[in-house]
């Protein structure tokens, strides 16, 4: 391999840059020349997070490129930003639980799916998403599993608040490493934000929850004085859980509407 160009594309908050940094360090440990640069704007969340990774046997002068050998696509909303980097020979690795095949840029080489969002939510915890991806990419690029975990641990150890979480994180990473790609038979992209407003009626009240605006911040749940709100299975705009309401408990205090920063929830008394 003379030069390997890897483009990672996700959304702010998914941990894309951490994946890229750890991979860069891992390749460097193997004696390769590496270059890593994030593409970034001002927003911290809600816009594409893209990383350019170049691995080479000779000095790398310029950190960006026009066509990628590997496109790692982790968020449907990031596809428009990166589709020009694809070409006939490019290999695409994508999160098949949130992205459907039809959304991806056309490529003639095989496309590899891993339903990482679904695996994270169902088997580990939501934030383990990027650990699963990193595990799989370590395998794809022939990197040493233990060395990569060590590097990852070095990056993230301050974020593991308990030993239990740390153990789960390692399990998620190694699960990703051992996962066999979906090729030609992919998961359904079921982990998508719900498109429709949720309207619930009962006990003289009507509640409205708008997943298209809910970012899963949890303020409404925290501020509900009677614990009438909790996370549901529906997903909001960043694939985080949207609240569901128990209208029997609800006392129509209005806190959820007062505190929602995004205008995504309200309860009204029926006339």
């Amino acid at each position: 391999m003379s030069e390997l160009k890897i483009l990672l594309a996700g959304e702010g908050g998914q941990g894309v840059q951490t994946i890229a940094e750890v991979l860069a360090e891992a390749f460097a440990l193997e004696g390769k020349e590496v270059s890593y640069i994030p593409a970034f704007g001002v927003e911290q969340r809600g816009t594409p997070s893209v990383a350019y990774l170049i691995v080479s046997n000779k000095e790398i002068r310029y950190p960006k490129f026009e066509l990628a050998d590997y496109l790692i696509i982790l968020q449907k909303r990031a596809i428009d930003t990166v589709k020009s980097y694809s070409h006939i020979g490019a290999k695409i690795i994508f999160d098949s639980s949130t992205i459907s095949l039809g959304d991806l840029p056309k490529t003639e080489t095989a496309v590899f799916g891993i339903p990482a969002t679904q695996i994270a939510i169902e088997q580990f915890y939501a934030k383990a998403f990027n650990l699963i991806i990193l595990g799989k990419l370590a395998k794809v690029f022939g990197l040493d599993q233990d060395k990569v975990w060590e590097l990852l641990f070095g990056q993230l150890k301050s974020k593991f608040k308990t030993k239990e979480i740390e153990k789960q994180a390692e399990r998620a990473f190694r699960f990703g490493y051992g996962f066999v790609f979906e090729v030609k038979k992919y998961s359904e992209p079921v982990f998508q934000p719900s498109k429709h407003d949720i309207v619930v009626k009962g006990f003289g009240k009507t509640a409205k929850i708008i997943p298209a605006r809910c970012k899963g911040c949890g303020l409404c749940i925290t501020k509900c004085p009677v614990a009438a709100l909790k996370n549901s299975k529906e997903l909001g705009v960043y694939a985080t859980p949207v609240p569901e309401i128990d209208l029997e408990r609800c006392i129509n205090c209005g806190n959820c509407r007062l505190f929602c920063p995004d205008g995504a929830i309200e309860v009204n008394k029926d006339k």
Partner: protein
Amino acid sequence: MIEIMPKCWNKATKPDLFCPGCGHGIVLKHLGYAIDTMEIRDKVTLGIDIGCSLLAWNFFNFDTVQTHHGRTAPTMLGYKRAQPERIALAYMGDGGAYAIGLQSILHAAMRNEPITIIVVNNENYAMTGGQASPTTETGTITITTPLGKAKDSVGGLKGPELVRMMADKNAYVARTTMANPIVMQNMIKKAIKTQAETNNFAFLEILSICPTNWRTNAKESLHRVVEMEKHYPLGEFLKEDK
């Protein structure tokens, strides 16, 4: 009846680009409700700073202008002189207000410029990654204070207290918190009315949360903003008669 979101919000730009759980969303919501109830949507011009507040550039459906960092107050006081019938709002964070822009705010207060300044205080420079700001409290760990913010003479700049010293006795100077949205909404209305009805300077600091840089969840964020009141007391500051 309160709407799920203010009428003067620009629906086309929702969901907005503020982080999940950002205090700005709640402040801008109650600013929106205040503008709705006061029926002044077609009279308001909003100036915003460069920081997270810049994300509000197309947030409402009334005129909005992004200025430079720390320069929102002088821009809006210049605007008000050209359009005295309109309501000039200057919206910024603790960095823009109390570091780079402090001088202009104090002089605007001193001259009793009839503008309304709203400062959203979340104790850090959030957009650039959470560096310590003048309101970061002693001992707080941030990316530029990894060993905890060093103790300075005040332990965190108290903006309204400082502004009150410089402001006219008829100016409105106050501090509130997004943790109490109804009180906050009322104080926002008062701050706007001070300009619109009495032609005096108005300054309102709002204690707010930053889950992203504080690395806190909803519960922890709300707890911290309430703790902030120990150093940054809430209230309306009146000029003492001497």
